[in-house]
């Protein structure tokens, strides 16, 4: 799951258009605040319409296809999933499926659907619809990269009755239960599932607590309450309809316009507050939501088949030359912490490898010198006329890269930054033409490392030739026993961190803010928000 925590701020001509759009939208939404009159705290006020400023155009609203956090966030409000996951404990609980079971080798999952659930177009939720959804995802393949990854090895859905079905896999798929809690496997209506990929991007019909009202590309998205909704999971704070009548999402790419708009009351909620503005919204007038991204932290994901990256000593020297605490201090959230493993501390299965990832410039120098590198006149290591340099290709978090670049330069390693557009980033992945990628991968399961590093993964970013690691990555995906799997996952993290196949830089914290009057915004295990329990209080 690609996380897009901070977009590349230097967008092309979009900022001007966004500012114009912001002004227009602000003018349209002026009425909502005036109507909020009730003052009894904790109870809904009269008008339950909020404006939630997004940082980017969602591009594709279909949660099964998209990998953008912004679109997944909207998709969550429109669709429900078979299961739900407690963000605190990681426990999997029923949702659209009231009951579920898995066979011993994790190749077949049997679900029982709740009765009386309908899509917003009036059609009922049946086993056939779910089967059609999974079949459609399987056909979309790479176009639905996340959902396909959750359904890895999918062989078909066997419908046994109106409400009972079995999803089968050709090989063990332990992570499917967690995958089934995500909006990527949110269930769409039969019509939506049958529509073309392009049609689904613009409009999807789900069973969710909100219904899509309008989507104007690069301008705004509007969702309205689904009347008669009554099938939230046990993790929700109430039953019945959502509290909010409507949510308007204007697309405001400039962070300063979003923060300014929240201060002036144009927006009730804003997505992606810059860390630097944290203090500004830490008071009684606002609520600040900090949610750490689980999965692989923001890192240099190495291509060992390119340039100097094949040399273990060079990679290890890079990881030892990074002072992650200082990077966190300079570019991270006040509520965040420096990464201490190749999984973030909020990810299930995380192992503390703080010692391996400690700042150790002497150790780095010793490694390089043992390998024949010598400090050149310009303070950068050289070996036989070759300079110790590598390039990181990225499309966001430029400040993190610049901070790392300064530290590496201080320790004799030249790092070049190649900031590119999103398309060029994935283009580089397709051609394999990079030393390292600067990115993270949001996933509430240690399987994120397999997705990122396995030679068989469709989402392979790190090019690594390590048979032992590959075997372990496959083994953890097929191990049902929790303790046994944890032991494998520990070993994987140890190898990846020690061999510096992934060099973590920062644990990304997603920071959102709202006016104090907005209450009840909750987050799922992957730090994505849920608006079902949200309301405007007096």
């Amino acid at each position, binding site marked *: 799951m690609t996380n897009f925590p901070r977009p590349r701020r*230097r967008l092309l001509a979009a900022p001007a258009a966004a500012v114009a759009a912001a002004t227009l939208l602000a003018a349209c939404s002026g009425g909502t605040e005036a109507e909020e009159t009730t003052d009894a705290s904790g109870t809904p006020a009269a008008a339950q319409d909020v404006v939630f400023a997004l940082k980017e155009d969602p591009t594709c609203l279909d949660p099964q296809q998209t990998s953008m956090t912004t679109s997944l966030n909207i998709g969550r409000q429109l669709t429900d999933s078979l299961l739900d996951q407690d963000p605190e404990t990681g426990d999997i609980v029923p949702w659209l499926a009231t009951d579920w079971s898995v066979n011993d080798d994790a190749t077949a999952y049997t679900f029982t659907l709740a009765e009386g659930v309908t899509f917003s177009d009036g059609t009922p939720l049946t086993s056939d619809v779910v089967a059609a959804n999974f079949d459609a995802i399987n056909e979309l393949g790479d176009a639905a990269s996340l959902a396909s990854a959750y359904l890895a090895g999918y062989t078909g859905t066997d419908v046994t009755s109106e409400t009972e079905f079995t999803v089968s896999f050709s090989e063990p798929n332990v992570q499917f239960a967690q995958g089934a809690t995500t909006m990527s496997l949110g269930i769409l209506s039969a019509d939506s599932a049958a529509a073309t990929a392009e049609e689904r991007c613009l409009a999807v019909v789900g069973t969710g607590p909100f219904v899509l009202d309008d989507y104007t590309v690069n301008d705004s998205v509007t969702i309205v309450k689904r009347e008669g909704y009554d099938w939230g999971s046990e993790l929700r704070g109430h039953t019945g309809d959502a509290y909010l009548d409507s949510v308007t999402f204007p697309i405001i790419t400039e962070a300063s316009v979003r*923060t300014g708009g929240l201060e002036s009351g144009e927006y009730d909620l804003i997505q992606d507050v810059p860390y630097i503005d944290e203090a500004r919204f830490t008071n009684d007038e606002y609520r600040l939501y900090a949610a750490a991204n689980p999965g692989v932290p923001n890192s240099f994901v190495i291509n060992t088949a390119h340039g100097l990256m094949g040399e273990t000593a060079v990679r290890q020297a890079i990881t030892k030359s990074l002072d992650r605490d200082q990077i966190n201090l*300079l*570019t991270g959230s006040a509520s965040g912490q420096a990464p201490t493993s190749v999984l973030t501390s909020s990810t299930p299965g995380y192992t503390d490898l703080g010692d391996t990832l400690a700042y150790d410039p002497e150790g780095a120098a010793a490694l390089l010198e043992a390998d024949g590198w010598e400090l050149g006149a310009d303070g950068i290591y050289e070996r036989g006329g070759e300079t110790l340099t590598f390039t990181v290709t990225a499309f966001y978090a430029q*400040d993190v890269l610049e*901070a790392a670049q300064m530290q590496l*330069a201080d320790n004799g390693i030249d790092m070049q*930054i190649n900031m590119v557009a999103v398309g060029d980033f994935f283009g580089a992945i397709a051609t394999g033409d990079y030393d390292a990628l600067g990115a993270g991968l949001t996933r509430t399961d240690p399987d994120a490392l397999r997705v990122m590093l396995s030679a068989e993964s469709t989402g392979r970013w790190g090019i690594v030739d390590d048979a032992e690691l590959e075997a372990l990555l496959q083994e953890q995906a097929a191990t049902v026993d929790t303790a046994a799997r944890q032991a494998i996952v520990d070993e994987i993290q140890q190898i990846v961190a020690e061999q510096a196949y992934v060099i973590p830089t920062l644990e990304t914290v997603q920071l959102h803010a709202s006016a104090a009057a907005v209450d009840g915004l909750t987050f799922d295990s992957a730090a994505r928000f849920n608006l079902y329990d949200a309301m405007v209080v007096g």
Partner: protein
Amino acid sequence: MRRLLNPVTLLSALVLVVTLIAVIWPGLLAPYDPFDSVGDARLEAPSAAHLFGTDALARDVFSRVVYGARLSLLAAVLATTAGAVLGGLVGLISGTAGGRVDFAIMRVIDVMLAIPGILLALIVVASLGFGAVSIAIGVGLGATGSFARVMRAQVMRIRNEEYIEAARTMGLRRPTILFRHVMPNASQPIVAMASTELALAILAVSALSFLGFGAQPPTPEWGSLVSDGRQFIATAPWLSIMPGSVILVVVLAVNGLARNLGGNR
């Protein structure tokens, strides 16, 4: 002499001399390394130690502005030169050839003038790729149209002068007349125009760099410095205001000098 003692001229000249030093020997002016942090003092307000304050990575903003002068100004000079040379040549050909050739060339120039220069530059940069050189080419191409117009008008005036007639009757070949007699006499307005265009080019180059078409980080450019400061505008406004003011002052200085030395003839 009177013109040189004009306070505006003096002040402009002084600013440009300092700017020139920044372009050639940035190390003389910059008190710190523009690429490295100065301890943990991040987002500090302007002070005696840090004239323009420090940025989010605790780098001295003044030093970054000084080092940013080279790319920003060289791109502007390159753009103006390219525009003047290319536009001058087109105008020269158009003015001398006359007839259908003139008509055809001028319609193309009309089309170029109809497209705003910055938009033309955007198109060029988007197709050539990011970087200072493509920005210079883009901005230069955007300025070509007006240079061509001015050159053509001059050539059309001069080609009917008596000394051109005389040269022709003496049997000089056309290229000789063009480059030895017409061009030197027609180029003076082009030079005057180039000095004012330079100010516009600095603005255009900074605008494109602001939009993210410039050099890769951490190389500083004036436009990208303003842009990088944007996200801190509410908490640390100097990050954008300081480099922005420098652009303003330099553009005013170029303009002031151009007007007082070249414009009021």
